């Protein structure tokens, strides 16, 4: 932890010294989020509802996806851009040091430009929670606490899935440097997809993104419980744990990748 804080300080100082670059990238990220938000708002302005979900209910999912994705991009960029770390021989230096590889790869890249995007996502999340609050607290303080905790665990679980995707992509980089862009389908595409309730998608797509990459477990399934919808039961509150299982499995792949790694450098 202490070592990671030192990594963070170095990255922070480095990025703030190139301030104009940081500002431009932060602005770009913000505009991307805002235009995605504009799309949601515009569509609700015309149609009023989406497959039985209200605007604030969808905004809740939107906020969960944005916050978790941008925080994971901030923290785990090292895994996301791991093929560059590998190609530059930087990983060999990491292996030579007497510390764990995961911590060092995390520390190698921290992307503070994602902070603005995370804040916008958080603001949307707070707005949605305030609008939906009355329904969530209607049946007593204990259940109300459970419902808010479910939203928190959806956010954490969603972050775990995104982190898992980055780690899996990095593990794939040990095998082949080609075609890694496909990982973006799951990371960027996963974010885009999970901004909306997964129930609107085709059954095959939904199954894949529930049982293989478990976005469904941090999306509409626990949301039913968090919103106190009729028929929703409390076990759904534990589904976001699947995100952590996914992350744990991806670390197994990572370990296998490190073991089979043969350096590219001299």
């Amino acid at each position: 932890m202490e070592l990671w804080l030192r990594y963070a300080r170095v990255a922070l100082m480095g990025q703030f010294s190139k301030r104009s670059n940081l500002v431009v990238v932060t602005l770009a990220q913000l505009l991307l989020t805002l235009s995605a938000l504009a799309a949601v708002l515009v569509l609700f302005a015309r149609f009023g509802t989406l497959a039985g979900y209200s605007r604030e209910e969808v905004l809740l999912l939107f906020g969960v996806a944005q916050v978790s994705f941008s925080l994971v991009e901030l923290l785990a960029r090292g895994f996301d851009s791991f093929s560059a770390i590998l190609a530059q021989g930087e990983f060999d230096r990491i292996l030579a040091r007497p510390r764990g590889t995961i911590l060092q790869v995390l520390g190698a890249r921290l992307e503070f430009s994602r902070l603005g995007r995370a804040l916008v996502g958080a603001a949307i999340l707070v707005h949605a929670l305030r609008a939906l609050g009355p329904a969530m607290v209607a049946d007593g303080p204990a259940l109300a606490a459970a419902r808010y905790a479910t939203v928190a665990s959806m956010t954490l679980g969603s972050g775990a899935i995104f982190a898992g995707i980055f780690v899996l992509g990095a593990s794939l980089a040990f095998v082949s440097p080609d075609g890694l862009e496909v990982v973006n389908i799951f990371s960027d595409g996963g974010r885009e997809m999970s901004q909306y309730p997964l129930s609107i998608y085709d059954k095959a797509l939904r199954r894949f993104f529930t049982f293989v990459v478990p976005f469904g477990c941090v999306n509409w399934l626990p949301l039913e419980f968090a919103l106190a919808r009729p028929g929703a039961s409390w076990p759904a509150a534990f589904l976001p744990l699947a995100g952590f299982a996914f992350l744990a499995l991806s670390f197994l792949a990572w370990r296998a990748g490190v073991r089979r790694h043969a350096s590219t450098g001299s």
Partner: protein
Amino acid sequence: MSASASASVAAARPSFLAPYLGLFRTRLVRGLAYRAAAAAGVATQFFWGFIMISVFQAFARAGLSPLDPREIASYVWLQQAFLVLVVVWFRDAELIRLITTGDAAYELVRPVDLYAQWYARLLGGRLAGAALRSLPILLVAGLFPEPWRFRLPPDLAQAGLAFLALALAAALTVSVSLFAYILALVTLQPYAAFILLAPLAEFCSGLLVPLPFLPDALRRVLELLPFRAMLDLPARLWSGSLTASDSLRPFALGLAWLLVLVPLGRAALSAALRARDVPGG
């Protein structure tokens, strides 16, 4: 690279168009060489296409929709297939490097019109990207079951009009994106202009949400801007949501914008060149 190619073409046949055609061709050939990137791009575009169609169709089920589910599918697949032709953020990284390192000064030495030269290379790069990506997307999407299927336009005339509109869209997109390169020349901040211009163009052209889904007041304003002919016009002509007779006005407007934007861009470029010194020794 492009310099020697255009020079040799110019030497062989000194017509005034030759250097621009040479640049256009080298960009096209180079773009076609990046097949792996195109394959990954195609996969990504399919996925995003599915997401967009699902979202729009799910919304449209809620009530009176200006586009029916089939029109939505055709609209989105046409957009995904020709994305590199119509998005502002598709950048020529090498041209940006040329601008920010000051190597653009060498371009000035050549006896060719700089605006036309940049226009040709940007158009060539975009056509190469679209040539690789569009066919696989359209062919495969044409085989999907309803309501996902990419459909042909109602008749041949409408298909022809849609292709004309696509050509106009590409010409307009290049003329709009050129302003971002010109701004990069002024500010030496390579991406700032793209970052502002790209989301704006995406929203106003109907790339983010088809324009008929927007509130009517906003839509009426956006229909007057040049962005409309960058996607809305070809995609809606193709999907059949816009009839041939209703397309005449947007066609004329788009063409008028092109005739305004090209001289404007040319003037801006020469003003920008006069106004600043080029970095580098």
